[in-house]
């Protein structure tokens, strides 16, 4: 094995645990809460709430996973 010299130290803690991972529950649970979005009003660009709000949940999904990834990646 050759050991790369100018790279940062090899991954330290192998344990991939973080309390931040609980945040990932948000984008799993919220899109399943039907009463939140099963309605027509308010409309956005003519789209009923049912459609635009569920599309908006994508932003929650991307936001949460990106945040968790950025906050936990140093730990290996």
């Amino acid at each position, binding site marked *: *094995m050759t050991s790369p010299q100018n790279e940062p130290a*090899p*991954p330290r803690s*192998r*344990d*991939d645990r973080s309390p931040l*991972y609980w945040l*990932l*529950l*948000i*984008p*799993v649970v919220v*899109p*399943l809460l*039907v009463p939140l979005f*099963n*309605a*027509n009003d308010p409309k956005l*660009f*003519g*789209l*009923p709430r*049912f*459609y635009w709000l*569920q*599309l908006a*949940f*994508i932003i*929650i*999904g*991307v936001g*949460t*996973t*990106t945040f*968790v*990834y950025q906050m936990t*990646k140093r730990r*290996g």
Partner: protein
Amino acid sequence: MWRNHLTEIVIFTILFLAVSALGFVAARWRRPETLEHLDEWGLGGRSFGGWITWFLLGGDLYTAYTFVAVPALLFGAGAMGFFAVPYTIIIYPMAFLVLVRLWSVSHRHGFVTPADFVRARFGSPTLALVVAITGIVATMPYIALQLVGIEAVLKTMGMTGDSMLARHAPIIIAFAILAGYTYQSGLRAPALIAFVKDILIYIVIAVAVLYIPYKLGGWDKIFGAADAKFAKTPSPTDGTLLNAANQWQYVTLAFGSALALFLYPHSVTAVLASRSRGVIKRNMSALPAYSFLLGLIALLGYMAIAAGIQPMAGATAGTVDSNTVVPLLFEKMFPDWFAGIAFAAVGIGALVPAAIMSIAAANLFTRNIYKEYLRPGATPEQEAKVSKVTSLLVKVGALAFILFLDPQFSIDLQLIGGVVILQTLPAVALGLYTRWFHRGALITGWIAGMAAGFWMLYVTPNAATRHQHFGGSAFALSHLGFDTKVTVYTGFLAVGVNLVVTVLATLVLRAMKTPDGVDATVADDYHVDEGDPRVKDLPEPVTA
């Protein structure tokens, strides 16, 4: 008649041939020392970075069939079809945690398939065989469905005929080409083609969701037309919103489908082909961009209602092929040349997942049947050879589905496939976290889940296709004696049965002190990242 569609056919053909050429050239792309190794042919050298993985997974998970069938579902049933959006949101946070563990343990031990992992984790070749066969059985109709997607486009372009050969000649040729470059280039072919596919799809959808609503008079008009259509139907479960009867179906279908998707062997293949844990995690953050696309595509179904599209006739008299709705909408709203590009996008969109799926199924056969039972000492080179040939056979099999069976049958089978693949959840997904389950209990649970799933599918009729059985995945709880109209996703209930039985059987087998398999993995295996030596590279442990 096809003569009226000449511009479309010419553009479709040119684009199709161009990506086919790309597929053959892919063998030289990121050229390895040899392609005659399963890691190279079947997993692209396990070296794909963020962008390639993004396109590969995107092409893999959002298939041509999705682009055709999801809008068709909204066209026919309304809000229920939109389940595809929550489904493809909730999957990524879950996969974010689970798949990196699978990647790490597979990287360490050189696993190629989910069944490889199960074999090592639970020390049971039999359980691995069950998982492998489940994967192959669930994948075959999925490949066939990609052909349904291409056929919907070909049909719209008037490429139909009376004889079976005339009707199917284009698709046979298309599939022969696909088989050719998959054989030659392995996973590199769909990875490279996925770039083109995605660019085409993005262009088409961007134009479609701006241009078509504009032509139709805005979203208010589109939803007005959809509401008017659903108000006229006798069915109480359609409409642009959910109702008391189908909202649990909506939730369980979204959740169950999300669990199923990453159990499919082709998803695992694309994940294992990536270079590191970071690549997977970054992708799980970024892939929902496709879900946005999918949501917009889904709305094409309502646009088709507003545009007054009538689906073409189905294979059997008196039925309609609702999968033709989107191609017909493109045909009606777009100029010929752009319709040609749109059709090519759908057609090429079918090739990427079809290639990955056939590779994944072939890998399962090679690793968990051929090497396990037929030729234990097979070298990686022999494995690659067997996989290449098997990928051809898998495609012939999928083609046979389309040629000799009613396409509706493939759709029903795909439905069953989702229920079937979910039964590997305890062994594969939960197995990544716990070794508590007994190998015998996992097999028992699998049998119970399959039996429950098949019974529920069997008693479900489909009014639209007039099938008495296997008519859909919405299981009516009234079958269990409840006085209710509520329906729930069959796969969700079936995997519940599976889990309960697995837990109970584990307790029984432990109490009886039945010998359990040996776990070949250690806790540390689930966290390793790139740069970590593989098990085969590690020095032999010194034994005293």
